């Protein structure tokens, strides 16, 4: 035993390109700097290296993975390697014939996002007319025999619609419904004032989801991911840094999470220059927050340190300026007041003013709806 555990999941961020401009996109604000995408051959090699390391799950995501024209080839190789392959998509742009090719190539699951339950609201959040097309894609997914995961990112504007989202998922025949509250990183952080819900809103939505979970047991899996701004306990981000997941950025950086390359002072290697296994085992970036030696108090002596691993390093950095701080989401963090202040501000409803995802990164647009 080298002491480093095996990874189970490779999150392949095939591209940061996307026709949608969602206001809570998890891609980094400077995603435009990572436009030199890996070619097909490199991705195929990475899939083989990942499987060899112990990876059994492959998430094909982005950006919008459909904008890559080599998805069919990657899916076929993943199937040959017996990886469980999940396509995480907005459904745009997609033709039914192409989806049928994914099926033939061995894709296991399709996850389609909808932003809300009406075209007007969904399209406003996505910054693109896309809702009707998404519903059509969901129907194709089921017709072609795929399991369907419907995903909705929750926030102040749609949390009161959870019952309708459940009904939509049932109508579409979804096998899984992922109600994932916004994580306030990436584009969601500058949009936090417009997105963070109130505690009452969240409690109501959680109850609706719990009722749906009981009613649909065995038929549709209903997941509700509570935002860590309201749990007073940090989330077990990525199940611990460098412990289970490898995220590969479109330009080939192997990362412990989607946003690790936004942390200053850490070095991450590219699969263009190094085998994935070497990076997993030896990279200083992967090692930086692995296990417990990096932990400050109160984490270091906390009985939950093996449960939440100190929370989210990116959240710690983006809120406190120190990536090695205890996640402020934790009530024991000396910076927890930052979270409490954000909650209080959420209680004073303000008109939503969204910053849409864009290459410029700073173009705030006022909503006219």
């Amino acid at each position, binding site marked *: 035993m080298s002491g480093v555990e095996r990874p189970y999941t490779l999150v392949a961020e095939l591209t940061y390109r996307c026709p949608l401009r969602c206001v809570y996109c998890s891609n980094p604000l400077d995603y435009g700097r990572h436009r030199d995408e890996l070619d097909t051959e490199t991705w195929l090699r990475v899939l083989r290296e990942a499987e060899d390391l*112990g990876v059994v799950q492959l998430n094909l995501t982005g950006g919008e993975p459909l904008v890559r024209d080599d998805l069919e080839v990657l899916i076929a190789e993943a199937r040959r390697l017996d990886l469980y392959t999940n396509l995480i998509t907005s459904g745009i742009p997609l033709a039914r014939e192409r989806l049928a090719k994914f099926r033939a190539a061995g894709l296991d699951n399709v*996850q389609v996002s909808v932003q809300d339950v009406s075209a007007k609201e969904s399209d406003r959040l996505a910054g693109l007319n896309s809702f009707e097309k998404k519903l059509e894609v969901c129907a194709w997914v089921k017709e072609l025999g795929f399991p369907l995961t419907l995903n909705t990112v929750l926030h102040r504007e749609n949390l009161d619609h959870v019952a309708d989202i459940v009904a939509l998922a049932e109508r579409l025949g979804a096998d899984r419904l992922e109600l994932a509250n916004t994580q306030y990183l990436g584009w969601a952080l500058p949009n936090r004032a417009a997105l963070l819900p109130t505690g009452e809103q969240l409690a109501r939505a959680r109850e609706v989801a719990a009722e749906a979970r009981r009613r649909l047991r*065995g038929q549709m899996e209903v997941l509700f991911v509570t935002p860590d701004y309201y749990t007073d306990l940090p989330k077990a981000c990525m199940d611990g840094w460098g412990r289970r997941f490898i995220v590969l950025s479109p330009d080939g950086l192997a990362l412990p999470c989607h946003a690790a390359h936004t942390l200053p002072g850490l070095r991450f290697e590219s699969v263009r220059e190094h085998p994935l296994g070497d990076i997993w085992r030896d990279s200083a970036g992967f090692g930086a927050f692995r296990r417990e030696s990096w932990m400050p108090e109160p984490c270091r002596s906390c009985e939950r340190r093996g449960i939440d691993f100190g929370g989210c390093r990116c959240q710690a950095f983006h809120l406190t300026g120190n990536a090695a701080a205890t996640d402020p989401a934790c009530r024991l963090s000396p910076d927890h007041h930052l979270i409490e202040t954000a909650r209080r501000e959420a209680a004073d409803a303000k008109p939503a003013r969204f910053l849409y995802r864009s290459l410029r990164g700073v173009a705030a647009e006022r909503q006219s709806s």
Partner: protein
Amino acid sequence: MISAESRVRLAAKARLRFDRKSSRYMLLYPERGLVLNPTAADVLQRCDGERTVDSIVEELARQYGHERPAVEREVMTFLQTMADRGLVQAVA
């Protein structure tokens, strides 16, 4: 509900895979996976939509040389748990 007469199969979203790192079978489904003990793997490998629960119990009792009632209790409990989690279905 899973009964002795149910013909059971894996849900569409679930797939068995042998894991050479742990020398165990895994049941994989979106974003998750279960590492199976040998008995669980024996049961799930027989969930082919053809066999009934009854016949799976019969086969395993013979294979393990165990009393049938004990095997039946274990298999039924396991399959009902898996069905509740949406990983196993009774074929209509």
